[in-house]
């Protein structure tokens, strides 16, 4: 068995919202799999079904060979889950939270005490370990929450947007922690809205939109479709932008997209395309109002895959 997670034609709807519209996935043992998509794409629903929290309406999902519906208890003994909110009790101390999860994971008493101490240390919470969680900062709560998902040393871990709301330092620490876990053999399924995060951690990325997987590939291949660099320009008006787009036709750009007076060019040739863009614009006598060079974002992925931008605020209630 090489796949830790197998999902076939998974379906789930909430009243009139279709959250999962026939999702297929395979996650290889000991790897990080990234589910990338905007709010309401169905990422959280997929994680909830895999973690046995929600029953699916149709299709099949297996974790380590155990069906999430028929064998829910066996699945629960093998998974850890950290959701979007720090699911810890604010009135308990960090240690008490971890110990409670240990008891509820049916671990023997001695193992629980040792494991709680170990996790507090690992997540740099030893000093705060005996303080009530309501005195913790947001980053500390999130670390504790992830610690709680690891109490039973689960071979499969679900992380639902683990770095949302974290500052850069905490995010980088968390990324390192995830890499360590995977080095130890843990399989991680991670959802994110950031292409960079999926790219940094995952060996495979599925892009989800409207409850469907619209792409499933390695980060390298996904980015090759996108270009690793995006040059974003704004012009005085739509006509100037159109003129610029014509001037730039035939460059080594992977994709060129014009929307009103905005023009973006993506390429996997990095700085070289920027030089060429500037040279051609200069030759054509067009001057952009603004020009920025950046890494591709999830919005660029969407544009490349669906021809449309991520809809902001398209948060389906069932997300």
């Amino acid at each position, binding site marked *: 068995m090489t796949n830790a997670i197998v999902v076939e034609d998974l379906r789930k709807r909430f009243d009139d919202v279709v959250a999962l519209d026939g999702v297929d996935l395979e996650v290889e*043992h*000991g790897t990080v799999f990234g589910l990338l998509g905007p709010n309401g794409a169905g990422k959280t629903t997929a994680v*909830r079904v895999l*973690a*046995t*929290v*929600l029953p699916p309406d149709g299709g099949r999902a297996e974790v*380590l060979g155990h069906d999430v519906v028929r064998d829910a*208890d*066996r699945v*629960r*003994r*093998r*998974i850890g*889950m950290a*959701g*979007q*909110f*720090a*699911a*810890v*009790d604010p*009135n*308990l101390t960090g240690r*008490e939270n971890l110990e*409670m*999860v240990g*008891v*509820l*994971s*049916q*671990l*023997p008493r001695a193992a629980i005490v040792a494991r709680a101490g170990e996790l507090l240390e690992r997540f740099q919470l030893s000093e705060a370990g005996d303080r*009530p969680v309501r005195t913790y900062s947001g980053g500390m709560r999130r670390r504790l929450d992830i610690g*709680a*998902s690891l109490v039973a*040393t*689960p*071979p499969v871990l679900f992380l639902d947007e683990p770095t949302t709301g974290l500052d850069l330092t905490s995010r980088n620490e968390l990324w390192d922690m995830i890499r360590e876990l995977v080095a*130890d*053999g*843990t399989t991680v399924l991670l959802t994110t809205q950031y292409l960079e995060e999926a790219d940094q951690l995952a060996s495979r990325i599925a892009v989800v939109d409207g409850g469907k997987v619209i792409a499933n590939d390695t980060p390298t291949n996904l980015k090759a479709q996108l270009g690793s660099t995006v040059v974003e320009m704004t012009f005085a008006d739509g006509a100037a932008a159109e003129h610029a787009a014509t001037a730039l036709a035939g460059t080594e750009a992977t994709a060129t997209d014009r929307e009103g007076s905005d023009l973006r060019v993506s390429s996997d040739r990095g700085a070289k395309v920027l030089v060429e863009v500037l040279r051609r614009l200069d030759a054509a006598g067009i001057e952009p109002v603004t020009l920025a060079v950046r890494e591709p974002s999830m919005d660029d992925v969407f544009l490349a895959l669906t021809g449309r931008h991520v809809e902001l605020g398209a948060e389906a209630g069932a997300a």
Partner: protein
Amino acid sequence: MSATDVSAFDTVRDHRVPLGILRDTVALARRGLIAYRRVPQLLVFSTIQPVIFVVMFRYVFGGAVAGSLPPGVDYVDYLMPGIFVQTAVFGAIAAAIGLASDMKSGLMERFHALPMSRAAVLTGRTTADLCRNAFVVVLMMVVGFLVGWRIHTNVWGLIAGGLLVLFFGYAMSWIFATLGLAVGDPETAQAAAFPVLAPLVFASSAFVPVETMPSWLQWFAEHQPVTANASAVRALTFGGPTAEWVIKALAWDIGIFIVFAIISVRLFKKAV
């Protein structure tokens, strides 16, 4: 055990045996009780309110109500059993707020993904409230003695009365557990609880004899659980037709417990 040694996970203890359910219940009840210790306001509010009721009814409304009581009955002896029952009912709201908070915070989702007893989330919560109620009822008995309440039966009547109040409070916890799971938001749970509580507590024999109410209200007041339990505790501590009221009260309490335990467990399985 290594992360990939899969078979080891089924050899650890099972939560489905009765002992496992008990263990999970204790773990979650402990969690609820720690909250009372760490956030003393929770306990202070649930004790100050009944003390205010005692003082208010004993000294403010007491004189007016006394006229409607049979001759020779002291209002404080009538009032205190009502206060105990009212305290237990108001205290039961904690189950609604607690479970709704867990749903909102995501803790409920974590519980759903753990290999634990499903029912323990509810039995743990209601057990914590039962322990809190035991503390508050004893405290209210002391307050009662201080304002002149006396036992006219014997110590067994007092103990039986105390236990009946706790059982009623426990049964009510399941009504509010159901409410909390149904609304899923602590503020809404609190707002929704009052319309349930107010008619039960005030249109009852808890504070005033039901004979003083208009006949349509009297019918409701005579046939509802707060009256049955308050009258039973009154009979146990003051005297009167004890068996009749105690049987009625137990019938209500057992009925409420069974019906709402079933409904709330069903709701829990769907609540995330």
